[in-house]
């Protein structure tokens, strides 16, 4: 299924593989008892969650309850924050994410991330995709060009930008920039995509385009999306989890299939939140 995983060092580059279709519940990321501290302050505690392969899992909850922190701990982006400390266990397809000797560069290539605010590099559209590809070992010009084209087609940007690949990425509209960022993550053919409110900085129209794009990723990538937009979560998610602040720190209140969370929540807090009575 993933030949590349067995020969990571000899083959720095591997093509996008067909992934199994969604909703064969097979945990790809298993998080156990995960706690995160900023200095002395506990950001979230004891999160235990299994994220299924090829599915879209949405994390919902009010601001400041640790959803984004949780997301960034999965690709160890929290390492960049001074004084930030993790405890617990994260396993990604058998790989111990929190082990000291985990190769960050390989981990982050397998786990792509999209941020709330579109953040293309101040380079041309082409260079935005070419630069990370080159850094990960793809140097052949023809393959670069075709990978870039595929990446841009995947996010529906190719027809909009094919005539101006060398113009600055920052001149694109917000929605286009966000799709470019998604393409930038996709061309590295990751297994997992972490999305931190990818639509919240966009206008409704662009937001809709990006949302359709995310739905199209189902089955090929394991998507974990943080969103404040409950309607969106309801539309796109296969699984959902609710974060809430309890006793001064974030906590995963309930997780399950989207249908269960939105229609038959077990916890009263979840019921109140998804019905719009709280939060």
């Amino acid at each position: 299924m993933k030949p590349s995983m067995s020969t990571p060092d000899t083959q720095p580059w591997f093509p996008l593989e067909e992934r199994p279709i969604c909703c064969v519940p097979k945990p790809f990321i298993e998080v156990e008892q995960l706690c995160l501290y900023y200095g002395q302050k506990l950001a979230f505690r004891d999160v235990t969650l299994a994220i299924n392969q090829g599915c879209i899992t949405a994390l919902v909850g009010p601001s400041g309850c640790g959803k984004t922190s949780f997301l960034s701990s999965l690709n160890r982006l929290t390492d960049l924050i001074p004084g930030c400390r993790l405890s617990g266990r994260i396993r990604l397809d058998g790989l111990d994410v929190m082990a000291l000797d985990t190769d960050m560069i390989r981990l982050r290539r397998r786990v792509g991330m999209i941020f709330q605010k579109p953040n293309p590099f101040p380079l041309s559209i082409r260079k935005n995709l070419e630069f990370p590809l080159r850094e990960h070992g793809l140097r052949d010009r023809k393959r670069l060009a075709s990978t870039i084209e595929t990446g841009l087609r995947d996010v529906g940007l190719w027809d909009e930008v094919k005539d101006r690949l060398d113009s600055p990425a920052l001149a694109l509209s917000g929605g286009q920039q966000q799709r470019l960022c998604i393409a930038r993550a996709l061309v590295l053919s990751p297994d997992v995509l972490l999305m931190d409110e990818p639509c919240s900085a966009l206008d409704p129209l662009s937001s809709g385009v990006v949302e359709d794009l995310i739905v199209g990723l189902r089955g090929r990538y394991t998507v974990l999306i943080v969103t404040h937009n409950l309607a969106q979560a309801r539309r796109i998610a296969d699984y959902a989890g609710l974060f809430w602040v309890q006793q001064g720190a974030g906590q995963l209140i309930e997780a399950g299939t989207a249908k269960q969370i939105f229609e038959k929540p077990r916890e009263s807090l979840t019921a109140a939140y998804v019905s719009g009575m709280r939060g």
Partner: protein
Amino acid sequence: MVKALEPQRDGREWLASTFVWSAAALVTATFCWLLGDILWHGLSHLSWTFLTAPPQNAGREGGIGPILVSTALILSVCLGVSVPIGVGTAVLLAEFTTDGTLFGRLTRRSLDVLSGVPSIVFGLFGNAFFCQTLGLGFSILSGGLTLACMVLPILIRSTEEGFRAVPADYRLSAAALGLSRTTTLVHLLLPAAVPGLLVGLVLGVGRAMAETAALIFTSGYVDRMPESLLDSGRALSLHIFDLSMNVSGGDAHAYASALVLVVSLLTINGTASWLADHWLHRRIVTI
């Protein structure tokens, strides 16, 4: 109708804007007066011969050819040494030291103190260390190195600011794409921090070109054409100082030399901002 829409200015606002405008006018007028004075007295003496010929009769006659060469050499030594060290230190301070650490605080504090130290102190230090301890004597090399010490604090601090002005987003998104720190630094942060470096360079070059006191003790007074970096050489600002203070009848050439100094400073400033606006912008966009 239009009048009714105009904002009512109260007395305090009028006072504030008058104060701001007169302060701005005062500064601009001082600069214009200075420039006008130099142009008025200096322009008539300026010629190709003046720029290339060696000085004669203690500078009353002849030109400033060797002095321009010495100045350029001193400046090259100064920048050749200070830019690499400055960028390196700025990278260390901005990217590899967290804000609160003792090391970072101490380094920044020392740099701030150093940038306020009078140049004569740097001159004495340069004389003691480069000329005597290292045995470089009165030479262009000693002068350039002393100026490098003087310029470094300004260069480091403004380059550091340049790095800090780069949005944290770039670092995060680069890390999330699995790019190494070195790659991120070289391909993303450095180009984005160049405007800060250029500001530091402009300030630093300005300070170095205008420097007199530190050079009296280090690069010396000799107005012959230098043959190597170990020769003594007279800097332009020192020449102006000498002509106007020690040489009677040297005023005319002092004015002409001052004009050359001002024009070259303005040229350097202009080039730096042009670089920042055009060339770098294109480069950053299309690496």
